[in-house]
């Protein structure tokens, strides 16, 4: 094969960038290649022009493009080869990566180790099936963000936003600042999946109403959206309550109803997937069920904070480099289970042997007040901590002492 690299990184967003740089640190001599389908590196951060990135990682508040550029600036000195305009089509367990590349055509690359960093994409309207017509003027919030922030088109003048995810909240402020009128953010759940700071800075600051337990039950308009019907839902069944319908006149409906990891490649290769995260099942090194294939960032599980993406990806990049250099982690494998209020915990597996600290990330399945988080190993309690409030919108982290893990562990809430 003409193209051989020790480490191939698929995706040039913050995950791929951090993985590449940490692989370089771990293996100064390795040949490293990054493949990105876009013209530019930086992934979703290119269009996230708001600030709030990097306070934990850099101790400084940056905008998305600034955060990405800090990593991009280091690539050249780190001698990492980058192919942009390159779409990866699939990869095999032999670690042959098939891609189409604007500059090279169809190319096969033999990798020593692969890091998956493809990010995620937004759930679309089809996945939700709102009744009504199918006029123009319905966008996912991220698509509207790209149109507005990169292409320079204001997607509409009178806006209703369905879902209170971060992208929707950010777009509510963006469009207000661009002169549009944002009439309502409707959230079907009794809580927001967005970060608190975005609710305060984007909605409260601009007097935009946020209605919990509400959803869009009909879309009106033939060619262009002319309005939507919003109804209250029963919190128990999430079914619309008859008689609560309200009409909102608008020309645009933005959907901010969540992200799905982009794992067609991963599934196609036969990597074991987690039904809850929609990402691969990994161990603490972020190695998947396929030896030498690692995953990190939003393709592994949806992150709210890019700082966590960078941290996680540094782990994956370093481990991929060690693997490519012939150092394989081996040992007894323990399972990490989530139950009783914990939706998922990651990594899902732990390879025994290390004595150091181990960070475990998890999300709860509903909003809880004063819960206590516990980690059990058999009948031993490895970790127990009281929290004031926990919501599904915020990813939680805890640090375990790996030396204490002697079997499968369970992460749970004492509610």
């Amino acid at each position: 094969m003409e193209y051989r690299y020790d480490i191939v990184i698929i995706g040039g967003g913050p995950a791929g960038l951090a993985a590449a740089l940490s692989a370089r640190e771990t293996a100064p001599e390795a040949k490293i290649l990054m493949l990105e389908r876009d013209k530019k590196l930086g992934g979703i951060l290119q269009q996230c022009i708001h600030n709030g990135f990097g306070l934990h990682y850099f101790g400084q508040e940056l905008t998305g493009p600034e955060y990405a550029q800090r990593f991009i600036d280091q690539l050249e000195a780190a001698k990492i080869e980058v192919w942009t305009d390159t779409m990866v089509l699939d990869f095999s367990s032999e670690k042959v990566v098939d891609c189409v590349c604007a500059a090279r055509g169809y190319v096969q690359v033999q990798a020593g180790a692969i890091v998956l960093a493809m990010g995620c994409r937004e759930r679309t309207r089809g996945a939700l099936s709102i009744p009504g017509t199918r006029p123009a003027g319905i966008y996912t919030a991220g698509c509207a963000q790209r149109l507005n922030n990169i292409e320079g088109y204001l997607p509409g003048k009178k806006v209703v936003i369905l879902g209170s995810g971060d992208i929707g909240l950010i777009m509510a402020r963006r469009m207000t600042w661009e002169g549009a009128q944002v009439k309502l953010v409707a959230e079907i759940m009794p809580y927001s999946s967005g970060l608190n700071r975005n609710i305060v800075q984007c909605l409260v600051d601009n007097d935009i109403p946020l209605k919990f337990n509400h959803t869009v039950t009909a879309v009106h308009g033939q060619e262009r959206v002319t309005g939507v019907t919003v109804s209250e839902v029963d919190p128990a069944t999430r079914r619309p309550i008859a008689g609560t319908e309200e009409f909102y006149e608008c020309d645009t409906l933005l959907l901010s109803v969540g992200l799905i990891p982009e794992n067609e490649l991963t599934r196609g290769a036969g990597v074991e997937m987690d039904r809850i995260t929609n990402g691969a099942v990994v161990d603490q090194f972020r190695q998947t069920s396929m030896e030498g294939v690692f995953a990190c960032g939003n393709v592994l599980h949806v992150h709210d904070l890019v700082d966590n993406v960078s941290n996680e990806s540094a782990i994956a990049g370093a481990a991929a480099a060690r693997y490519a250099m012939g150092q394989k982690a081996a040992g007894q494998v323990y399972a990490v289970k989530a139950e009783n209020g914990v939706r998922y915990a990651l990594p899902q597996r732990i390879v025994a042997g290390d004595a150091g600290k181990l960070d475990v990330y998890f999300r709860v399945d509903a909003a809880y007040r004063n819960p206590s988080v516990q980690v059990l190993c058999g009948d031993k309690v490895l970790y127990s901590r009281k929290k004031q409030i926990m919501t599904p919108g915020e990813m939680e982290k805890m640090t375990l002492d790996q030396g204490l893990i002697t079997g499968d562990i369970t992460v749970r809430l004492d509610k």
Partner: protein
Amino acid sequence: MELTCIVCPMGCRITVEKVDGRLHVSGNTCKRGEKYALQESVCPMRTLTTLVRVRGGEGPLCPVKTREAIPKAMLEEALGVVKGVCVDAPVKIGDVVVKNIAGTGVDLVATANRERR
């Protein structure tokens, strides 16, 4: 006053109370939170992040921000100033796009590189 700290994405819930004529802050995890809560109860500050037009660049727009936070009350006026701004590529991160925007004493700077096309 009850408020949510927006300095970092942790979003701590903070209470500001007047105790014996002095402001008392609780619920914050770190010093930045205390500073923010005091500021918020006196003169709320916000960083403006928006876009300006670019002539001769890779794309039509370049993202910008106020280098520091400006009074929330000044956001609207600053946005008005930004509307009329057009810069020539190339633009580098940190380039000053508007000096002392809307008389706030804070510069508006570029937050991305834009090569000449």
